[in-house]
């Protein structure tokens, strides 16, 4: 077996150079059963790749040791507060706020997408205007605005606005209206990704408008909707931390309340960080399974 530079398979053996000096494979150790004269294929050496991998691993190891050894991280404090009642309550609020904002935001977003794709120019314009407006201002500004809405409308339906809209209600309202603008674009993109012929085929078969949407268009649109929606879900989970500015006791604000008292800032921020990472990881796994489900009937699935 020689490892001569690869030539034409049918090169006559006597024309090949004898065993090349660089060859790593000793005679007879080559792969079995090729044509007797065929030269052996040897992949290029990847010295650089190996060196880079080792270097990165060493750096990573150094970083991790420093984190573990640095007393200032106060891992014992992290452990102490990680499952404390206050933090878990904050986590609970973050989770249900995320869920509520996603569900309401996507419900409103789907409606906005439907309006935007409708034949009615007024509805189209209104939907466009909504998305334009709510995407044009920072969520922080919107949230502060809703928090102070009582200045503009002191009473709504005979009830004091401040009583009607507590901080948590403001958080749900503000985040949902903002979320809907983005959800509308995600859903619209998904619907537009469905081949026009699918709708025609459904029309030709006499399927009604609702059935066409729910049975034919939406399941196919979901393939394009799920990845950006998963992105938005994770973004929303982290984005809810903004409600700490209006004193809603979410995960971040709960840890802040503790460190304002104890001055253990870093360990408590680590508590929040680890929880965000944990929940985000679970959501990523969920997204993967959802994507597989909506890939039914496309190429490699099944």
């Amino acid at each position, binding site marked *: 077996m020689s490892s001569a530079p690869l030539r034409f398979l049918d090169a006559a053996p006597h024309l090949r150079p004898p065993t090349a000096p660089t060859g790593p494979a000793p005679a007879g150790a080559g792969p079995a059963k090729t044509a007797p004269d065929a030269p052996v294929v040897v992949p290029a050496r990847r010295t650089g790749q190996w060196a880079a991998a080792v270097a990165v691993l060493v750096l990573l190891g150094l970083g991790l040791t420093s984190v573990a050894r640095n007393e200032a991280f106060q891992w014992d404090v992290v452990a102490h507060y990680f499952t404390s009642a206050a933090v878990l309550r904050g986590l609970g609020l973050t989770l249900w706020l995320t869920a509520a904002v996603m569900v309401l935001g996507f419900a409103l977003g789907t409606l906005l997408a439907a309006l935007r794709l409708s034949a009615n120019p007024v509805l189209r314009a209104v939907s466009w205007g909504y998305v334009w407006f709510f995407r044009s201002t920072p969520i922080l500004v919107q949230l502060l605005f809703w928090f102070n809405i009582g200045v503009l409308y002191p009473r709504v339906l005979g009830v004091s606005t401040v009583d009607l809209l507590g901080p948590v209600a403001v958080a749900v309202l503000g985040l949902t209206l903002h979320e809907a603008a983005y959800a509308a674009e995600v859903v619209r993109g998904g619907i537009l990704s469905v*081949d026009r*012929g*699918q709708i*025609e*085929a*459904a*029309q*030709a*078969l*006499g*399927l*009604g*408008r609702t*059935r066409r949407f729910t*049975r*034919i268009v939406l*399941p*196919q649109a979901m393939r394009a909707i799920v990845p950006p929606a998963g992105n938005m879900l994770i973004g929303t989970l982290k984005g809810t931390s903004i409600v700490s500015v209006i004193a809603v006791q979410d995960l971040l604000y709960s840890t802040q309340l503790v460190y304002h008292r104890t001055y253990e800032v870093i360990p408590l921020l680590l508590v929040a960080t680890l929880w965000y990472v944990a929940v985000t990881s679970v959501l990523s796994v969920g997204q993967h399974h959802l994507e597989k489900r*909506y890939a*039914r*009937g*496309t*190429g490699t*699935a*099944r």
Partner: protein
Amino acid sequence: MSTVTAPPTPKVELRAVRKNFGTTEVLRGIDLDVAAGEVAVVLGPSGSGKSTLLRTINHLEKVDGGSVRVDGSLVGYRRSGDKLHELREREILRQRTRIGFVFQNFHLFPHLTVLENITEAPVSALRRPRRAAEETARALLARVGLADRAEAYPKQLSGGQQQRVAIARALALEPGLLLFDEPTSALDPELVGEVLDVIRDLAAGGTTMIVVTHEIGFAREVADTVVFMDEGRIVERGTPAEVLDAPRHERTRAFLSKVL
């Protein structure tokens, strides 16, 4: 328009059908009768309006003038006085369930199995019980030679198999009329035969159909009537022997000399 032996009420009756896309006149006054049980094959160069014509028959395309009748009743419109009012979508959808349509690119629903593709319309549009619809679907699959592919997804089938499923899907509504829009144009040459075989069987079974195609050999063999279209008009129509072997019109001759 000279029509061949038309019975009292034609299955399909087009009168002065006009259609514009913007400023382009795609159909410039089409008169066409197709009798029950008749197989009409529409030939013509690309852009002659044949597909558009077919699509006006089940109101996938709205007409800008003239009228389309199937079984004697207007498709897509209701007449009151000298006006044609477009029907509500619900009523149009009901009319469409009596007209089967087979697309050039199949348009099977990729996320549904073959069986689900076929049962969808009978179950949701005609409110048939699912069990009965599935039984019918399996019988139809056997008829198009795909009895063993009921659980497959469209992507797992060849183009020819997909088009045969699409035909079964159209047949599941038991339509009195079948419209084929270039059913073999998207297929590899070796798959054309299996689809034409199925259409040939249906023709022999007495189904009324209008087939837009480029398959001249198929037209000669299966058609009762051949219609030749050019530039939005019907140039001539007659039996295959008349139109294909002894075309009277110069444009028909020019077209046939290119494709034969």
